[in-house]
């Protein structure tokens, strides 16, 4: 861990919306390369980066489209700078192929998706949480990556930094799954002193070029990177590859290559996953939520508690990988899980799978365009408590 470079850190107490806070998170995290394409409701992130980067030594470029943006981000990260792009649904769809390339080449980078209602052009200016499964499965093939879900402008700042740290540590694209409501909600954001912001540095190899294999994993299953232009003369490809990084297209290499990419995240879940727990000790019913829906759930839970219903809250700060172990443990002790989502049932499918029929799972759905009325969540708690 190293401390943040004060040049990018706007220490102080600010009044910012989530989009601007995320941009500041990137500046504080040491992100110095940004490539993006405007799309509501994420554009303010790019706009703030465009304003700030020339003042802090960053390079901002508005690309011709989102296909180009994510490709440039992968190139920028290989070039040695922490790199990021930001988008919303339609652009996220265009980025899918190269998010897969990022997974395959193991490129640290951050992609922010400020979710809006879909499908297609949908609701450009209104919130949804309906890209959650796309984040998990939208690129072709089997893969694992990390997706976080902030629920306040403060967290847009904090979790953007955290995303850079996770992406460097696990050499994987990290998605920050915001939504229009969080993106455009203005609140107090405290940016600490640079010395209080801890950053994960890229793990470059110390082996000399003759001994270095670009895709030979360390104990934590993550291979070390080599800097370009220093004699390593490595090759990297989106094709199935061996430890030398050379294409090797057969079933055995596929198993080894993809198997490790999955294990790298799955076997390290305990270290990666971050959840918030509230009132879980005596809970019969648990509201499981993420992002803006977790905030809307609070008054519902408080109201039910006041009425003596033993309801707890589990907030998924990390949505992917999913906290499977925790849900399996809880499922043995609680009667029901309730999940409010601004979609017609996405992450709840994973919740239900992990509950394995041992606890009832209820979805409180919403097609998007606005957040839940807390009463609907409260009603679901009451129903489950009957």
């Amino acid at each position: 861990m190293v401390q943040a470079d004060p040049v990018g850190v706007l220490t102080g107490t600010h009044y910012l919306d989530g989009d601007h806070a995320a941009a500041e998170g990137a500046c504080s995290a040491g992100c110095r390369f940004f490539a993006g394409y405007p799309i509501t409701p994420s554009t303010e992130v790019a706009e703030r980066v465009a304003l700030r980067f020339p003042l802090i030594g960053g390079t901002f470029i508005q690309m011709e489209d989102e296909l180009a943006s994510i490709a440039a981000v992968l190139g920028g990260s290989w070039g040695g700078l922490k790199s990021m792009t930001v988008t919303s649904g339609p652009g996220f769809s265009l980025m899918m192929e190269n998010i897969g390339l990022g997974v395959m080449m193991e490129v640290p980078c951050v992609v922010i998706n400020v979710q809006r209602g879909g499908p297609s052009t949908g609701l450009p200016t209104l919130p949804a949480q309906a890209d959650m499964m796309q984040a998990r499965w939208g690129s072709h093939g089997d893969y694992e990556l990390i997706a976080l879900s902030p629920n306040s402008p403060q967290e847009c700042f904090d979790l953007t930094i955290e995303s850079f740290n996770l992406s460097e540590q696990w050499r994987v694209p990290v998605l920050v799954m915001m939504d229009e409501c969080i993106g455009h909600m203005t609140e107090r954001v405290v940016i600490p002193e640079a010395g209080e912001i801890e950053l994960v540095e890229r793990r470059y190899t110390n082996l000399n070029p003759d001994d270095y294999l670009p895709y030979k994993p360390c104990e934590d299953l993550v291979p070390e990177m080599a800097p370009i232009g220093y004699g390593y003369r490595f090759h990297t490809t989106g094709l199935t590859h061996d430890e030398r990084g050379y294409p090797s297209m057969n079933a055995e290499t596929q198993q080894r290559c993809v198997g490790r990419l999955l294990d790298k995240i799955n076997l390290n879940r305990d270290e990666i996953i971050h959840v918030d727990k509230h009132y879980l000790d005596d809970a019969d019913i648990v509201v499981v939520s993420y992002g803006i829906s977790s905030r809307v759930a609070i008054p519902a839970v408080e109201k039910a508690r006041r009425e003596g219903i033993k309801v707890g809250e589990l907030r998924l700060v990390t949505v992917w990988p999913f906290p499977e172990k925790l849900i399996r443990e809880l499922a043995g002790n609680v009667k029901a899980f309730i999940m409010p989502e601004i979609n017609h049932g996405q992450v709840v499918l994973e919740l239900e799978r992990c509950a394995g029929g041992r606890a009832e799972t209820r979805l409180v759905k919403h097609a998007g365009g606005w957040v839940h009325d807390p009463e609907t969540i409260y009603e679901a708690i009451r129903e489950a408590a009957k």
Partner: protein
Amino acid sequence: MTVTEVKPDTTRKIPEHPKSLLLRMDRMPHIWCSRCGIGITVGCFASAMEKTGLSPDDITVTSGIGCTGRVAGYVKADSFHTTHGRAIPFTVGLALTRPDLKHVVFSGDGDLISIGGNHFIHAARRNQNMLVICVNNFTYAMTGGQLAPTTPVTARATTAPYGSFERPFSLPTLAISAGASYVARWTSLHIRRITDSMTEALQRRGFRFIEIIAPCSTIYARRNKLGTGLDLMKYYYENSVIDHNASVDDLDIGFQSKIVVGKFVDKDRPSYGKSMHEHFRKVLGNKYQPPVSGKMEIDKSWSGCTESQDTTVTDEVQS
């Protein structure tokens, strides 16, 4: 019939390939067919590298997908085999974060001009720092010979079984009108000229484009009954006309038509990085912080780096 069996002489040492410094000999044999034009262009590139005196550590090589897209996999430099069409924007990222290096994109016409066409014109417009080498074989070879945006009218492709009727792109015309700093076209037998162009272009900055008209012996030549790859190479060479001052109207290519080749553009125009740097310096004055490069970040965080590094940003570095 008497058949003399020739036994390989196992005692003979295989001489080192003259271009082995720049090639991944541990990946040979390569996948390209015999008499394919791609290998020749890679040979020219290796010669150009030698002529410039650049080390493989001074460059990156990036490809998209296709037969030509495999070039990145055979060049012994830091090399990136990306997705179909995205070699150029990927290289935009490399070039802006590592302005101290030379960046080369080596890919096919379908890759660069069809699926990647938008990136091509925008990178040329911004004069992004990279040398783009395109092997134009008038078809999508890797996937079996489908129609490309370069396929000449009446030439056959699997998806144009009755011959093409679409007007193809002339790639130099596209590059010139989008604003590229350097534009040349040769056929694959213009070995010395290709090498000279590559040598020259490697030493320039901004967006540089070299098109090489080359045969796809196995698919395009065969389907269109144009003889062997070698026949076709000779045909292209013999039917080419060198005209450095050609007007863009002369650059279209018909089926087995005359091909105008030459160096059409070689001008100094500030690259994207340089324009950005100068603009911000002018409008922001002291508030402007010149961009950090990936090299500076690497030098800061990498304990494997032993050389002492100069971390000051110069205009040259920023161009």
